[in-house]
């Protein structure tokens, strides 16, 4: 079972809550996805308002609430927002996003590392959103990140796992869980991420913008399970040469 910072998760699909057409659709998609970890942009919610529509659909006894710092331009802003959120009762978990370019929303590696160091010191459980940079992943792990979240492709692009080669290196090297975040556009993308050994995936746009978000949430749940199953079962090596499944020539002629 997936374990992050000592907490166990049955589902390896995490859900983002942005871009949904209504709080009601979001609620149904969460239920259909079977996910247990849900991330919410702090900029979108008012933690001090009990009638906030997004917070209203998140049953915090069922789901781990993972607030994120989307919109922060540097470490200072992200740290500040995290502190305010924790003071308002959001808990210790934090998805760290430092995205100074509002167009691509690509994460700033330098500021992300700085913010992680500071937030870990302050007792946060930090899951940083990063580009698929293996060395940065190692640096964050050393700084105390509870998991790393490399992107499959830039947020909201649906381009899939275009960073596959780099993500494979990250998975290979990491001691902490690797959650592929952003850019996964179809269940097959999520399945691929799981097949290569990602510990979990986080999906938002592909579900929230689908014609039927609830059905799509269920489709992703199935894909994540299938991909994980294949990883655990052990996938065969891909090869361009044909090889018979029952070899005709054995090696029994070799003596000794």
């Amino acid at each position, binding site marked *: 079972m997936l374990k992050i910072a000592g907490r166990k998760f049955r589902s390896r699909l995490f859900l983002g809550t942005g*871009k*949904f*057409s*209504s709080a009601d659709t979001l609620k149904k998609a969460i239920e259909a996805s079977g996910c247990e970890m849900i991330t919410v942009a702090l*900029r979108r*919610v008012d933690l001090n308002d009990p009638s906030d529509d997004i917070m209203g659909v998140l049953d915090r006894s069922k789901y781990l609430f993972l607030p994120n710092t989307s919109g922060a331009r540097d470490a200072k802003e992200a740290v500040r927002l995290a502190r*305010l959120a924790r003071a308002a009762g959001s808990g210790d978990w934090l998805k760290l996003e430092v995205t100074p370019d509002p167009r691509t929303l690509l994460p700033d590696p330098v500021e992300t590392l700085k913010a992680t160091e500071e937030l870990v010191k302050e007792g946060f459980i930090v899951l940083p959103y990063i580009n698929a940079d293996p060395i940065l992943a190692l640096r964050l792990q050393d700084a105390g990140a509870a998991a790393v979240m490399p992107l499959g492709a830039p947020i909201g692009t*649906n381009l899939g796992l275009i960073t596959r080669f780099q993500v494979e290196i990250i998975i290979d090297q990491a001691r902490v869980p690797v959650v592929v975040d952003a850019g996964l556009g179809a269940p097959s993308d999520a399945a691929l991420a799981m097949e290569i050994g990602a510990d979990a995936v986080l999906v938002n746009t592909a579900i929230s*913008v689908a014609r039927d978000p609830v059905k799509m949430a269920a489709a992703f749940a199935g894909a994540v399970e299938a991909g994980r199953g294949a990883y655990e079962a052990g996938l065969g090596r891909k090869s361009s040469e044909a090889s018979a499944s029952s070899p005709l020539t054995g090696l029994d002629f070799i003596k000794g």
Partner: protein
Amino acid sequence: MFAIPAFHKLQEQIQAADVDDVQRSLRADHLHAADLAALLSPAADNYLESMAARSAAITALRFGRTTQIYAPLYVSSFCTNRCTYCGFSADNKIERRILSLEEAEAEAMILHQRGFNHILLVSGEAPAKLGVEYLEKFALRLRDRFAAISIEIQPLSSEEYTRLFAAGITGVAIYQETYDRITYGQVHMSGQKCDFDFRLETPARAAAGGMREVGIGALLGLADWRAEGLALGLHLAWLRKNFWRTGLTVSFPRLRPAAGEFQPLVNVTEKDLSHLIFALRIFDPDVGIILSTREEARFRNGMVGLGPTRYSAGSCTAPGGYSNPELTGEQFAIGDHRTIDEVCGAIRQKGFDPVRKDWDAGFQQHSLPL
């Protein structure tokens, strides 16, 4: 510094595009200025449906099934400019008003109670009456109650924008009105606004001053809307290259009846406006597109999700008008008179989430001592 090509050159480039150019541009993943010219051309007039579909798909991907909601708060109608098209023009005999900070705060609180979290402070251009100091003080009073505060006032210096940003103002809207120098000179008769280049450089100064979001725009009804669209696209692209940290928005206010009996110099239809919105969305997938209450409810409802990402609601364009609905002296007559709840209800009916909060004052350093 951003240099805008001569308006007639832009028009020539647009007119030269043919149907093949339009089709090629509609297939492209990354559009260049030439593609925008093609999409704005008369050859593209028959492709409005395809453009709308592409625009809607891009908007959904980048912004989701959401529409942001904001309200303008008019703080002053004093103006030292004489502009032929504007209700606040210095020559017009309207009742002028500047709200005291207490009056302005009372207006803001009405908007807050109605459920607005994003507000845009608007004024005529009279720096001696309403300057940085006023806005700074006002923002400091408001910042703990509003998620985002923007301004649409006279052009300022970079240093002044930095000062306002520190006080909690995160966005600046500054519209060129028209990118055609000749028309610009004709409609701006006197005042600081006569300086075309000073105004043109204002978005860059706002971005350099640290503003998170800068809005540019053209007032439709002054010159050829197609060329205005291309000029805006060029301006956007230049700002993106030079200020990659700054979020950008565009707006295309259509001239509405106003005091002074000004009639639009060119007719811009709803079809033209939609065409412009779709073309700009396809050209720049990430730009915020504002559709204000200048437009009628029917049109605004129809456009939900097709390209625009931000709607104003329940707007009053006279200073003090939220507290005293009988007040006259508005900048222009609005076209959509619905309340915020009615506008949000209509957006929900279209399958979109009206988002009232999409920022947080906590990003900045000053709101609460920590």
